[in-house]
């Protein structure tokens, strides 16, 4: 089995082209940032725009003065401000969450590298190859059933 390990080890030399790595990284970061894609922000913006459009349409086609007066500029401004505050809060929350997730992932690759330990790999290898385990069609069939 060590021989196979050595042969598979050779594939570890495969590396992407450096220019591709740099170009792809730039393209990824030039794409729309995650906070611009938050679904709640999308819906909040969309609903606000739809509500304003509907109110303006009603005011325009209806002769009733009270409807027009209901479109108080102060109220609209205050509502818009509230929405902007919600936008910012949500964006801050998103940034905090994303930072925490990325920090955890970075510590994962820096700290949890036990599986790269040769002794551990050897130990696992012996665990999956029990002694006297002769190939048996019956066992193979049973395993196949279990895996399906």
């Amino acid at each position, binding site marked *: 089995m060590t021989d196979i390990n050595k042969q598979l080890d050779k594939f570890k030399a495969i590396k992407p082209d450096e220019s591709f790595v740099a170009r792809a990284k730039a393209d990824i970061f030039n794409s729309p940032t995650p906070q611009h894609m938050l679904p709640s922000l999308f819906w909040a913006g969309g609903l606000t725009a739809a509500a304003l459009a509907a109110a303006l349409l009603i005011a325009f086609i209806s002769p009733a003065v009270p409807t027009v007066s209901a479109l108080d500029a102060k109220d609209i401004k205050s509502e818009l401000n509230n929405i902007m505050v919600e936008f910012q809060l949500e964006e801050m929350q998103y940034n905090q969450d994303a930072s925490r997730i990325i920090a955890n992932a970075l510590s994962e690759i820096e700290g949890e590298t036990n*599986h790269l330990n040769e002794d551990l790999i050897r130990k696992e290898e012996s665990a999956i190859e029990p002694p006297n385990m002769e190939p048996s069609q019956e066992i193979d069939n049973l395993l196949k059933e279990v895996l399906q």
Partner: protein
Amino acid sequence: MNREEFGKLYDSYVSPIYRFVLLRVGNTADAEDLTQHIFLKAWQNIHKYKKRKGIPFTSWLYRIAQNAVVDHYRTKKAHLDINSSTARNAIVEHFSSDSVEDKIAIQKVYRALEALTETERNVIIMRFVEELSVKEVAEALEKSQSSIRVTQYRGLKKLKQAIDDGHK
């Protein structure tokens, strides 16, 4: 702010993910496209990762990679032809400094991978090329750890047989 931190993750994982994808699709251009797509998806969905508590980040990323490879075959109706000269050249071109004998040996092992099922190939590549733990592979492929161990045992046995047959 997040870009810089995610950039570090990208730098750490871009080679392993590219390698995994290349071994699965056998085509440099497709491997590059898919690798970029995988990281873009991870970047745009990083906020969803927190919901998957207990799953290592490595497994989450490989799960995206595995799904991208499956989608690639489904949408392009492509299939991996390890014996094709394109696939062999795509792998060997990454070993330009190696001797001819080494390149032939690499081609033989790569061709032997064809004897494995898709799951066995995934498990063998993840375990012995990417050095993921059994737990990480299990999470990435959404299978139990015991199932991964059994698949690994069977995969190695088949791979050894295929390599031996190739030498005859």
